[in-house]
């Protein structure tokens, strides 16, 4: 078991190198870069060359990559070409903001999806199922940013219950009530965005479990429908979900780009979008790197969880 985990960990390293290199190439292949956007035709060639040198743009590709990778491993993600601030510092502020919005939304969506999915799956074809499945279907087809606009209109403009922009009102940092007021709408939008696919999945897993032999056997031994659902089927349905939680790791950082930008929520999203618009390649690269690394780590976690949690898989252990 430990050997398997170790092996998986080692496999991660070349994947990481490959992904980061590809990402580096991608951004580097830009037809023009920020240096071009801060030099003017009036500048002399020496000035331009000096600027290029300062940004390290005259070195061969692999050297640049190596230099950059070295910095990254030391926690230095470079500086934003536009704002000159340390990217790592900016992200250190923004990532928690994103997490504090996305994590609760995902958890709530998951819980709702499990409860409603089990309900729908166990009452297949009945009204409850049609309603839940129908809502999930509509949810999947709904563009989340459009739903955000609707929510803003109804709760922000018409009812005026919640403020529309940002994470807190000026001067009210740290005020929990103020935070909550700002939090509710984007939170709601995210829950609605995450819920439908999860619910569909739970529903179909439930239906498939209920057609298994062991459910018939349970009924044969007098188990009530509720008992079967709560003590047996839910367990079997939750297993793949839990292992897939690892795959949701990147969502914690890049899962709400559009929502954050609509609500002006100071997370990773708007930071990334601004950088893409101004071709601020260190920032773009840093965020891309971060999310690709999270995907790889998330996969790793999912694989390990799977091996740990499913009793049918015991690699290397004797029975």
């Amino acid at each position, binding site marked *: 078991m430990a050997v398997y985990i170790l092996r998986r960990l080692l496999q991660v390293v070349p994947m990481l190198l490959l992904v980061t290199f590809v990402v580096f190439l991608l951004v580097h292949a830009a037809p023009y870069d920020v240096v071009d956007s801060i030099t003017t035709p009036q500048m002399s060639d020496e000035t331009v060359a000096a600027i290029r040198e300062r940004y390290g743009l005259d070195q061969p590709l692999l050297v640049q990559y190596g230099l950059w990778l070295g910095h990254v491993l030391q926690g230095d993600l470079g500086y934003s070409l536009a704002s000159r601030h340390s990217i790592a510092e900016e992200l250190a502020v923004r990532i928690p903001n994103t997490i504090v919005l996305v994590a609760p939304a995902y958890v709530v969506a998951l819980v709702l999806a499990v409860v409603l999915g089990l309900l729908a799956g166990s009452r297949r074809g009945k009204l409850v199922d049609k309603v839940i499945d129908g809502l999930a279907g509509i949810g999947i087809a709904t563009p989340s940013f459009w739903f955000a606009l609707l929510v803003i209109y109804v709760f922000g403009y018409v009812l005026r219950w919640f403020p529309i922009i940002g994470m807190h009102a000026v001067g009210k940092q740290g005020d929990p009530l103020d935070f909550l007021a700002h939090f509710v709408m984007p939170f709601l939008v995210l829950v609605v965005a995450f819920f439908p696919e999860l619910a569909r999945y739970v529903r179909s897993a439930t239906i498939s479990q209920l057609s*298994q*032999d*062991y459910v*018939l*056997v*349970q*009924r*044969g*031994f*007098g*188990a009530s429908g509720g008992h079967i659902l709560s*003590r*047996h089927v839910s*367990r*079997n349905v939750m*297993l793949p979900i839990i292992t897939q939680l690892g795959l949701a790791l990147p969502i914690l950082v890049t899962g709400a780009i559009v929502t954050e930008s609509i609500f002006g929520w100071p997370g990773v999203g708007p930071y990334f979008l601004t950088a893409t618009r101004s071709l601020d390649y260190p920032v773009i690269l840093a965020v891309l790197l971060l999310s690709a690394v999270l995907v790889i780590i998330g996969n790793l976690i999912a694989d390990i969880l799977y091996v740990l949690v*499913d*009793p*049918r898989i015991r690699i290397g252990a004797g*029975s």
Partner: protein
Amino acid sequence: MADAVTPGPIDAPTDLAPGDVLLSVDGLTVDLPGRTGGRVRVLEDVSFQVPRGRVVGIVGESGSGKTMLLRSLLDLLPEGADRTWNRVLLDGADITSELPRRRLPAAMVFQDPMTSFNPLVRIGAHLTEVAQRFQRVGRRQATALAREALAAVRIPDPDRVLTRYPHELSGGMRQRAMIAMALLARPELLLADEPTTALDATIQAQILALLRTLQAERALTVLIVTHDLGVVAAVCDDVLVMKDGRIVEAGSVDRVFAEPRHPYTRTLLAAAPAAPDEPEPGEAAEGGDA
């Protein structure tokens, strides 16, 4: 349809007093929704009696309705099924109107032990669940009962097996565990749906011997569904022959095998390959399958 023997009471060699009949079913008819709409009749006016303490085999080809018959008794029919009967007597008492609210004192052993258990739940948990439900005891006592049940089905080292997951046991062990689970429901009637079909030949013999032993030890009445006449010959006292949803012949195994009355029964007997020597009860190994 020419030579159909009127389905009726099993003609046993001796007259049966009503008190000797555990279960009597009259006029059972079951409809199922068909694949492409419409209804399919799987059981047609089935009537039979199960004498107390006997092992009764129900034999027939696939599609004869034998499994559905068993399932009707425990109300395990598929969604949309329609079940009607004229009369059901339990120990002479008419309980027709009490069904399906009331459960027959029966437990079922299912065909495929691998898929009959929840793969994510340990054997012990499966068993204690049943013990707690049927015997109204607490967790600790239920575990003790589970251990006893495993020992009763001749599983060595029951404590270890209690902690195992289903996939960690062999087929034969799993089936024994399933029988143990059935015992924990304190049934008077043990229903077995093709209990040995999914097992290897040598294990089959062991399981059948086990059933016979348990039946004697606990004065159980057993209903076995099978398509294998060899099983009937090996363990059954009486037999019901089914075809196309009807019982075409009923009687003691000796009589039916020696003097089959219905042409279908004769066909069945003729088609059976020559049976190897039956295993003697004493020869069955004591839970020795790995």
